[in-house]
């Protein structure tokens, strides 16, 4: 056990928690992360790397962790690639290691490492080159098998997730010293503030690096004071466990809240906040950098800041005997915290020649050996962890000193300098500048992300702004708050609390050791732990010409793993710059893309899964249809009855039964889904003449006309029956899926082109339930209702309509037919729909009444040769192509699509034309979409658009678009069925039944 006897600000030692890792039970405490608990149990090996399957341990204590990824949970709650450093420990937690077989300790994939010379940078791309056969049969299957991290879940996630919109004036990302001060200032100025912090605690590094005094108080006390003040403000919202994942244009910000990952509490597990903020203060802190040295990935090699985090926050010493390797004063803090916890330090290796200053002296005073101008040459150890290091001395003027004798140790704490977390600043266009002195990219205040008015709206504060000293951090936060507030017309002063802290000496940027000798090749100097990218890989990329940082990144996969290079990018860019002989800014950085850390797929879906996956539209008769065992099909967003099943009836007999009912008795169709748009005004006729290909202005009130609508390319986009209600008012029916589109289309023309027309429209689709009553008995059925409407053919002829009353229900009755039978479409206000439908059913029982579904509807219309927009048309078909030239006015001066129809391609010979197809074998129903072959069999000349078995005609019928089809009547075509078979069909008129229309016109 490496748990300290005391200490650990975050853990509750009175609450032991047991959990399982790879099936073995361990104990931790409430407040632990999975990483701190594993370290407390002395477990160093927690994972295997992606490519070489090298043994890996925990490196960090936060979201930047590259190595300690686990499968969390099991069965339906299984989740891969979870960072142990961010998993709160809870009773019963189960985790398994990833990317190993058969076990973490005995992983055969480690053989990859032996062959690592065969897997250089760009290996995957090189497999594409030659030999060809090897890629398919060797490389690809092998790579697929060995590469990868966690296992994808195989069951549906039972947890719930949600989105939440919010608005604020100032969003502050990060609850460290800078974020707290900025929030306090913005809160006191009266702004609506959201302060979000990715961990479960406020205070940031102040909780660990507590050697500064702020306003005469300890850092921890100052933090507590700020938290109390902020919690008392109504205009400040604090959300913990919430990461500012992304900043988009105009202050649109995405926050990722992990609500119940600790399995305490109820409700959504994750919440994705979508916040519109006026200003953002990025107080996102810094991430410490590793140093590239030989064997820097052996378990036990960790970031120095993480080592002291484990000591101070969780009461865990990752090593009993630690070596600190530092490029500046900061690493000495780790030495001091380990020393204070009673642990041994073998040495502090400092790359600087002459380390001085208070922190250094404190370390020396504690009796710890400080080795100036010394680096790590090599780490000795294996899957059980570090056992020793060899040092390399940087004597002045020459750094090729031989590797010195080894120093035994079980932990190496690397302090390679700090990189500001500039992600949020950069997501929507903020630029960064290279600061050579501090060896870091800092936000460039001259190139901030800008809002709609061209003003910067993201302000970097504290560590995120490149400030290392607490006084400067607070000053920067005060200035960021002032800047953000003044942008929104509020004010605060730029004063910051006074800080008393130790003075620190400059750091000496160091990326790589040793630089000479056999161990300097760089093949075991890891930059990107997760993707196994080494110094040697970057150098190879540079040698092979990948000079652009974006190319080198993709070639080597540096920074392309789930951690997106949080530890590796800057180091990798420095190695690339060195290899190219360029300065850092000349090499540049790769792009910082959201989200900052991976977010769950569930949070993206939110509550839109299961029945909420997508809106479904139901007619007022939906429950009736369902009770009648309707099988529904999607039509647009609607669900319409496809057929009504009786007992165990198969599909075809039920559809044939419904067709026969319409042809022989009377059927009811729920046509409520048809779009209905009111078009009113003195210019309504003129407007509709433009919208439809045929003439609408001549329609008489009380009459209907079938109309075609084309887009401006002359292609059919919708069709339907137009009724003229009065001189100024038309009712336009659209297809079921087309009502919103057609209404928007009309409004677009009225609002953007023809704003001089006096026309208003209203989409009244859902105001009306509308039922087709179709069949020879239709009139007989309707005449059984009480009312004074004369339904005779003389009073209400085909294509007429009338308003009336049926048994007291207000109705509008249209004499229109899509089945070819005597047919009335009856509209009633939707709320009366069920009453009307049920009356039709009960009054028509002896007439053989019953419902029919959309498939019967389709067969009935196909028998009559009526087109369906979307079946017979595909966005490239004109009215002429489908034989409906009769519906294209030659008298009108203009209509949408008229000019396009004159273009050569739309008037040429050889366009596909709508025809009927009658198979030579009448039982053979052609597949939908089947292609017709040219006479010589060399090419396709068209395709089947609708195809059915007609029970009325007792044979197969089909409609097809065939090149010059109208001139091929009577010819026999070959229709491809599949690779080995074909059918013969004779070209015919597409009207198969009652061509003269006698049945509907009675």
């Amino acid at each position, binding site marked *: 056990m490496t748990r300290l006897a005391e200490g650990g600000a975050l853990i509750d030692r009175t609450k032991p928690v047991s959990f399982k890792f790879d099936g073995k039970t361990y104990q931790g405490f409430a407040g632990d992360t999975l990483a701190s608990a594993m370290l407390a149990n002395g477990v160093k090996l927690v994972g295997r790397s992606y490519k070489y399957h090298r043994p890996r341990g925990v490196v960090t204590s936060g979201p930047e962790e590259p190595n300690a990824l686990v499968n969390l949970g099991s069965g339906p709650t299984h989740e891969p690639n979870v960072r142990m450093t961010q998993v709160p420990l809870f009773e019963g937690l189960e985790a398994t290691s990833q990317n190993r077989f058969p076990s973490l300790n005995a992983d055969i994939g480690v053989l990859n490492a032996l062959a690592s010379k065969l897997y250089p940078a760009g290996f995957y791309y090189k497999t594409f080159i030659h030999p060809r056969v090897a890629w398919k049969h060797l490389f690809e299957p092998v790579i697929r098998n060995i590469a990868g991290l966690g296992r994808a879940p195989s069951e549906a996630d039972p947890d719930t997730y949600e989105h939440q919109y919010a608005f604020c004036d100032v969003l502050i990302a990060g609850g460290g010293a800078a974020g707290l001060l900025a929030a306090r200032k913005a809160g006191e100025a009266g702004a609506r503030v959201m302060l979000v912090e990715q961990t479960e605690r406020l205070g940031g590094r102040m909780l660990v690096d507590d050697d500064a005094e702020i306003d005469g108080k300890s850092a921890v006390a100052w933090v507590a004071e700020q938290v109390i003040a902020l919690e008392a403000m109504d205009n400040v919202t604090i959300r913990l466990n919430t990461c500012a994942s992304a900043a988009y244009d105009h202050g649109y910000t995405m926050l990722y809240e992990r609500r119940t990952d600790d399995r305490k509490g109820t409700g959504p597990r994750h919440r994705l906040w979508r916040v519109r903020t006026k200003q953002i203060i990025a107080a996102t802190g810094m991430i410490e950098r590793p140093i590239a040295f030989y064997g820097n990935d052996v378990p036990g090699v960790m970031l120095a800041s993480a080592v002291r985090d484990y000591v101070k926050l969780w009461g865990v010493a990752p090593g009993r005997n630690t070596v600190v390797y530092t490029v500046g004063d900061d690493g000495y803090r780790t030495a001091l915290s380990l020393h204070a916890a009673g642990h041994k330090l073998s040495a502090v290796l400092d790359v600087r020649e002459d380390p001085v200053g208070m922190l250094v002296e404190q370390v020396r005073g504690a009796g710890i050996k400080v080795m100036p101008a010394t680096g790590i040459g090599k780490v000795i150890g294996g899957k059980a962890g570090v056992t020793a290091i060899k040092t390399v001395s940087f004597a002045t003027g020459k750094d090729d000193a031989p590797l010195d004798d080894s120093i035994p140790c079980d932990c190496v704490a690397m302090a390679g300098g700090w990189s500001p977390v500039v992600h949020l600043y950069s997501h929507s266009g903020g630029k960064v500048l290279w600061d050579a002195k501090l060896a870091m990219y800092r936000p460039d205040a001259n190139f901030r992300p800008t809002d709609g008015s061209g003003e910067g709206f993201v302000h970097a504060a504290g560590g995120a702004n490149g400030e290392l000293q607490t006084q400067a951090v607070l000053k920067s936060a005060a200035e960021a708050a002032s800047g953000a507030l003044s942008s929104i017309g509020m004010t605060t002063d730029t004063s910051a609390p006074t800080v008393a802290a130790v003075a620190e000496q400059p750091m000496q940027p160091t990326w790589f050791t040793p630089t000479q000798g056999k161990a300097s090749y760089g093949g075991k100097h890891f930059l990107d732990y997760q993707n196994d990218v080494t110094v040697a890989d970057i150098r190879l990329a540079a040698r092979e010409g990948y000079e652009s940082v974006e190319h080198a990144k993709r070639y080597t996969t540096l920074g392309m793993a789930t951690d997106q290079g949080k530890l590796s990018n800057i180091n990798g860019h420095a190695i690339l710059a060195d290899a190219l002989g360029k300065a850092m800014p000349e090499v540049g950085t790769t792009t910082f893309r959201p989200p900052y850390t991976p977010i769950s797929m569930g949070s993206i879906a939110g509550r*839109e899964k299961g029945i909420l996956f997508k809106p479904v539209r139901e007619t007022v008769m939906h429950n009736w249809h369902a009770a009648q065992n309707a099988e529904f099909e999607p039509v647009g967003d609607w669900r319409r009855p496809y057929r009504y099943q009786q007992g165990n009836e198969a599909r075809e007999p039920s559809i044939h039964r419904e067709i026969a009912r319409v042809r022989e008795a009377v059927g009811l169709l729920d046509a409520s889904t048809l779009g209905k748009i009111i078009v009113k005004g003195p210019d309504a006729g003129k407007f509709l003449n433009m919208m439809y290909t045929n003439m609408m202005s001549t329609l008489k009130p009380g009459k209907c006309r079938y109309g075609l609508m084309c887009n401006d390319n002359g292609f059919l986009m919708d069709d339907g029956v137009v009724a003229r209600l009065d001189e100024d008012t038309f009712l336009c029916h659209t297809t079921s899926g087309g009502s919103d589109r057609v209404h928007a289309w009309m409004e677009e023309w009225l609002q953007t082109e023809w704003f001089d027309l006096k026309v208003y429209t209203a989409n009244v689709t859902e105001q009306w339930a509308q039922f087709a009553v179709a069949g020879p008995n239709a009139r007989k059925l309707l005449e059984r209702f009480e009312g004074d409407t004369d339904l005779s053919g003389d009073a209400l002829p085909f294509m007429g309509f009338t308003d009336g009353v049926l048994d007291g229900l207000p109705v509008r009755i249209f004499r229109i037919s899509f089945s070819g039978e005597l047919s009335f479409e009856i509209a009633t*206000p939707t*709320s009366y729909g069920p009453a009307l439908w049920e009356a039709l059913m009960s009054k028509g029982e002896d007439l053989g009444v019953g419902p029919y579904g959309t498939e019967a509807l389709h067969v009935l219309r196909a028998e009559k040769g009526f087109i369906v927009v979307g079946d017979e048309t595909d966005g490239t078909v004109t009215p002429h192509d489908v034989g409906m030239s009769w519906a294209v006015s030659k008298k009108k001066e203009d209509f949408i699509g008229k000019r396009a129809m004159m273009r050569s391609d739309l008037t040429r010979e050889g366009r596909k034309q709508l025809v009927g197809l009658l198979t030579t074998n009448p039982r053979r129903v052609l597949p939908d979409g089947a292609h017709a072959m040219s006479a010589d069999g060399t090419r396709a000349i068209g395709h089947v658009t609708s195809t059915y078995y007609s029970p009325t005609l007792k044979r197969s019928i089909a409609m097809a678009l065939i090149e010059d089809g109208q001139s091929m009547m009577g010819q026999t075509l070959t229709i491809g069925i599949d690779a080995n078979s074909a059918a013969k069909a004779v070209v015919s008129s597409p009207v198969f039944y009652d061509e003269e229309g006698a049945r509907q016109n009675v």
Partner: protein
Amino acid sequence: MSESNNALARAPRDDTAPDGLGVQLAAMPLRAMLTIRGDFADAGFVSAVEAVSGCTMPDVRKATFAGNNSLLWMSPDELMLFGDYAKADDLVAALNEKAAGSHMLAVNVSDARAVFKVSGAKARYALAKGAPVDFAQGSFGTGDLRRTRIATVATGIVMTAEDPDTFEVFCFRSYGTYLWNWLISACDENALSDLG
């Protein structure tokens, strides 16, 4: 329409909300709804609307109230009038008569929409799970209205005259089942306990 007719009219939904919600949720009965379009600068049109509804013309993204009537701003040339269901046709007729000299459109759409009432201190947080609207106190109050979306359903949301925590949400009737189910999910008390 006669009373017997009204008895046959079926409301969009007659569901009752389940237990365990952090707000009060109800499906509302039918009401008169008129889509009115016209030129808001046309004094004749405006005076007709105000006379018939009893409401004053609402400002942009606002609703005004008078007795059982509410007048909602829907777009720069569109209003929605809420009132008693049985009076819808009379309201249309009265508008057509009073605004006879104006180019306008008034149409009865009383059956086309479903209306839900969401009320309680947490109602604003529940709606903000699906609607990109600033519902915060001080930003959204009585008489405020948005035409927006909840999830991917086009909705109108208005804070009624009733009290400052009561919202009415309306959508096209066919989406009523989806929106009802969505509201039940979003109003779950466990999803609201840590908000507000």
